[in-house]
C-alpha cells in the first residue's frame, strides 16, 4: 500500500485551525492513524513513544486496545528487541508521562467519553484502567486522586468492572473484590472505591489501613457543610483543593468569604496560574514562578510584555528562558546554520498571534551545533525582533550556503515574497555544483494536509516538515524518514523503547 502520513498524527489537538475545520482535520488524522496501524501495527505503537499531544496518544492507544493482536502470528510479528507485553508497556508508559487530567481523559476514551471514539471493553482495557488507577500507587497519591478526580475515576472503575460486578464489590463480595483488586493493595484501596461511589469509606477492624487524610477531610467537610457547621467546615477544608472547598461552599450556600476559601484550602502551581485572576478579584495575590513555565510560554510572555510596554519581570523571564534553553534535550544535526523567516506572515493568526515565529525561536533552541542563526526580514526597532514586511529568503539561503555547514535548517511558511522560485534556483545551483549540505525546511504553520501539498515547498524535492510545537521536532524528523526507510526507523524506535522502558 502507498502510505501517506506525517507527524501530524502525533500532534493533533481537536480544534479547528484557520484553514481547516475541526472535522475535516480530524478525518485526515484519523485516516493517517488507521493507515499506519494497518501498514505496521508495531511501528504504529512504537511511534507513540515520540513527543506528541496527549490527545493523539490517547486515540492511538484506543486504536491499539480496540484491535486484538492476531493469535498465532503474535510470535512472528513481534519485532526483535521488545517483549510480548510491549504494547501494553508503551500504553502504560505514555499514560505515566501525561499529567493526570490528560491521562484520565485518555482512559475515558475507552469508556466512550471525551472524543469521537467508541466504547471498548476487554481484558486489556480493564487491566490498563485498573493498573493506572491502583498499581503501585502510594496512599498519599491515591488520596489526592480520589479527591481531585472523583467523577472521572468513578466512570473508569464502573466501565472496567461493569455495573453488575461493581455492585458486588460495593456490597463486599470477597470473590469479586479479589478478581478485580486482588493484584493491588486491595484492603488498602477499597475505601477509595467506596468513596468514588459516594459511600463513606469503611475500614475493616483489625486491618492495617492507611489513613486517607484528604478523603476523610472530604467527608468531614461535606457533613459539616450539609449541617451548616462553619467552624468544622473551616477546619476540614485545610486538606482539600480550592475547587472542592469552593464547590461545597457554593452547593450548600455557606456564609463564608471566597477569600477565606482561597487562603485556607490548597493550590498547585498550575492551579495558581489558572486561579490568578479570580483570586486577585477576591483580593488575594498569587505569585507566578517563571522558572516552572514552558519555554514557548516564556517567549510568549516576553513578547507580550515588551510589545504592550509592560516591563514587569522582564529580567526574570529572560533568565528563565536562558535556563530553560540550557536544559533542553538537544537534537544534533551536525554543523548547522539556521535560517529564520521573519516576514509579516510569521506573525501568525489573530487566534494565535506570533505562534509561527515563537515556535521558530524554540526550534532553534532545541538544535545543537548551531554555527549561526540568520534572520531574514523583521523589525528590529524594539527590544525583540518582530516579524514584519517582506523578505528575500533566497538571499538568506545564499549567506547560509556560503558558510558551508553540513545542515541548513530553514524555518519558514514557504512564501518567498520575491519572484516565486528564486530560492529553489539558488538551492539547485549549489547542489549541481556539488556543495554537500542537507536542507531541512521546517514549517511552523501547522496544517493536517501538509503532506498533501498545502504546506508550500521552497525546494522542489524537499517536503516541508510541519512542526507546530518545538517539542515535536524529533518526532517530525523520524516521520520524515518513516516511509522511505521503515526498517531503520523501527530500529531507532526500538532503541528508544529499550532506553525508556527496557527491552528483553
Amino acid at each position, binding site marked *: 500500500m502507498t502510505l501517506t502520513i506525517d507527524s501530524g498524527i502525533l500532534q493533533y489537538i481537536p480544534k479547528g485551525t484557520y484553514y*481547516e475545520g475541526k472535522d475535516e482535520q480530524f478525518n485526515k488524522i484519523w485516516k493517517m492513524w488507521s493507515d499506519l496501524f494497518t501498514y505496521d501495527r508495531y511501528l504504529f505503537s512504537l511511534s507513540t513513544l515520540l513527543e506528541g499531544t496527549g490527545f493523539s496518544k490517547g486515540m492511538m492507544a484506543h486504536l491499539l486496545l480496540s484491535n486484538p493482536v492476531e493469535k498465532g502470528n503474535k510470535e512472528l510479528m513481534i519485532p526483535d528487541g521488545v517483549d510480548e507485553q510491549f504494547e501494553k508497556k508503551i500504553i502504560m508508559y505514555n499514560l505515566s508521562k501525561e499529567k493526570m487530567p490528560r491521562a484520565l481523559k485518555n482512559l475515558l476514551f475507552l469508556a466512550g467519553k471525551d472524543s469521537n471514539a467508541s466504547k471498548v471493553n476487554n481484558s486489556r482495557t480493564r487491566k490498563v484502567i485498573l493498573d493506572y488507577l491502583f498499581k503501585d500507587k502510594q496512599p498519599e497519591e491515591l488520596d489526592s486522586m480520589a479527591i481531585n478526580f472523583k467523577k472521572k475515576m468513578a466512570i473508569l472503575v464502573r466501565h472496567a468492572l461493569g455495573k453488575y460486578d461493581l455492585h458486588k464489590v460495593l456490597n463486599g463480595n470477597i470473590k469479586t473484590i479479589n478478581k478485580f483488586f486482588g493484584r493491588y493493595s486491595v484492603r488498602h484501596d477499597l475505601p477509595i472505591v467506596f468513596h468514588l461511589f459516594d459511600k463513606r469509606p469503611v475500614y475493616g477492624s483489625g486491618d492495617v489501613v492507611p489513613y486517607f487524610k484528604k478523603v476523610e477531610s472530604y467527608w468531614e467537610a461535606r457533613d459539616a457543610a450539609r449541617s451548616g457547621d462553619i467552624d468544622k467546615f473551616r477546619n476540614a477544608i485545610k486538606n482539600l483543593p480550592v475547587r472542592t472547598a469552593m464547590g461545597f461552599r457554593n452547593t450548600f450556600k455557606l456564609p463564608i468569604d471566597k477569600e477565606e476559601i482561597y487562603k485556607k484550602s490548597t493550590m498547585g502551581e498550575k492551579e495558581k496560574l489558572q486561579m490568578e485572576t479570580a483570586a486577585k478579584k477576591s483580593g488575594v495575590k498569587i505569585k507566578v514562578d517563571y522558572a516552572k513555565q514552558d519555554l514557548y510560554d516564556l517567549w510568549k510572555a516576553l513578547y507580550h510584555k515588551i510589545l504592550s510596554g509592560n516591563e514587569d519581570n522582564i529580567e526574570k523571564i529572560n533568565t528563565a528562558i536562558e535556563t530553560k534553553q540550557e536544559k533542553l534535550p538537544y537534537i544534533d544535526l551536525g554543523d548547522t546554520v539556521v535560517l529564520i523567516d521573519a516576514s509579516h506572515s510569521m506573525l501568525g493568526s489573530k487566534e494565535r498571534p506570533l505562534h509561527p515565529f515563537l515556535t521558530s525561536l524554540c526550534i532553534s533552541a532545541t538544535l545543537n551545533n548551531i554555527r549561526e542563526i540568520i534572520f531574514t526580514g523583521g523589525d528590529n526597532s524594539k527590544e525583540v525582533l518582530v516579524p514584519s514586511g*517582506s523578505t528575500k529568503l533566497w538571499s538568506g539561503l545564499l549567506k547560509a550556503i556560503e558558510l558551508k555547514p553540513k545542515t541548513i535548517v530553514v524555518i519558514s511558511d514557504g512564501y518567498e515574497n520575491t519572484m516565486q522560485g528564486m530560492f529553489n534556483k539558488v538551492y539547485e545551483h549549489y547542489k549541481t555544483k556539488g556543495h554537500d549540505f542537507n536542507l531541512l525546511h521546517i514549517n511552523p504553520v501547522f496544517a493536517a494536509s501538509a503532506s498533501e501539498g498545502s504546506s508550500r515547498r521552497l525546494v522542489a524535492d524537499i517536503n516541508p516538515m510541519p512542526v507546530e510545537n518545538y517539542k515535536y521536532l524529533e518526532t517530525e524528523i523520524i516521520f520524515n524518514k518513516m516511509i522511505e526507510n521503515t526498517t531503520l526507523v523501527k530500529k531507532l524506535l526500538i532503541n528508544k523503547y529499550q532506553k525508556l522502558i527496557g527491552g528483553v
Partner: protein
Amino acid sequence: MINILKKFKDLQFGEPQTDQQMTVIPILGEDRGDVAEPSNVSFKRTSGYGTMVFDNEDTKAGIIPSNYMTRGKSAQDHAMSGAGIALPGETVFNNACCIESSQGGMLHGAEDVDILPASLRKAFTDMELRKRKKYNKLWPRITAWLKNIPGIRTGNAHLRYFYDDPKYKNAIESFCAAFEPVPNQLGAFILFEGVPIGIEIMPTANHWVEYWELLIRGCYGAELVKLQATGAIKKSSTLIIPKIPDDASAEEIESIFSGFTKSVQSSMVPLLNAIQITDQNSDVNSSGLHIEVLKTDSGGGGDIITQNTEPIYLSIVL
C-alpha cells in the same frame, strides 16, 4: 485621455513579487493627505438591507476603501458600491448592496472583511448602478461570477459560498503570505500573467498595512483563484527565473537576481502608462474629500479621491 498616474506626485516602484500567475509591484511614496487613521474607521452594522453604517472615532474624515465587503454568520452580507467618506461619528451609506440572495438578518460589527472580487467591482463604474438604492442590484452578477466554479452551489447569489469553501479559502489566504508589505508602501500594481488587473494607492503606508490583505486576498486573490478553478487561466508559474551560470559566485547570483527583478519591473511598469482614463464622473464631495468615478480604455475603472485637488487615493480594476 489622461494618463492615470500622472496626477500622483513622487511615486516609486518596489521590487516585483510573484506567486503563481500574480505579480504585485509595490507602489512606494511618502504619506499624503490629511485623513483619519484607518484603524479609527470601522464597519459598525447594517441598519437595513442595502444600508451600511460606519463609525469614525477620529476627528478627521476617513476613507473607506472601494467595494469594502463584510460577511457575518446568520445575517445578510453586504458590500459598498464604491469608496466611501466616513465623517467623524457615524456615517450611513444607503446605496450598498446585499451579496447573499436568500439570507436575512442584520450585521453587527465585521466578522470577515474583504474587498469584492476584481471583475465584480467593474460593474460599479456604471454611475446609475452605483447610485441605485436597491439592495439586490448585484445579485445577477454574483450568480454569474459563481457559475462554473467547481464545488460551488449555483442558483443563489451567495459570495460566501466561495469565500467559505475550505479549498478556495485556503488558496486565497495563501496570497497574503506571498505578497507582504514593504516599507513606505502605499499601494500596488497588480498583474495576472503579465496583464494589468488593478492599481491601488492609499493615502498612507498605514492605510496599506490596514487594507492590503483585503485587496490581495479578497479582491485579486479571489479573482485569480476563480479563474484557475474555472480553467480560464492555467495553474502554472508564468515567470521563468533566469539560469545561474555554473561558475557564478554568491555576489554574481545576487547581481543576476536583482538584474532580473529590475528587468521585470521595467517591462511591467510602462504598462501603466498605456492605461488611459476615458471618462470621469463626480460621485461624492464631502468634508474636503472628493470621490470621482473613473472609466478606463480597457473597460475597467474605479475610484479616485482628491483632497484640495491633490489625489490621495486610487482604486481601479482593469
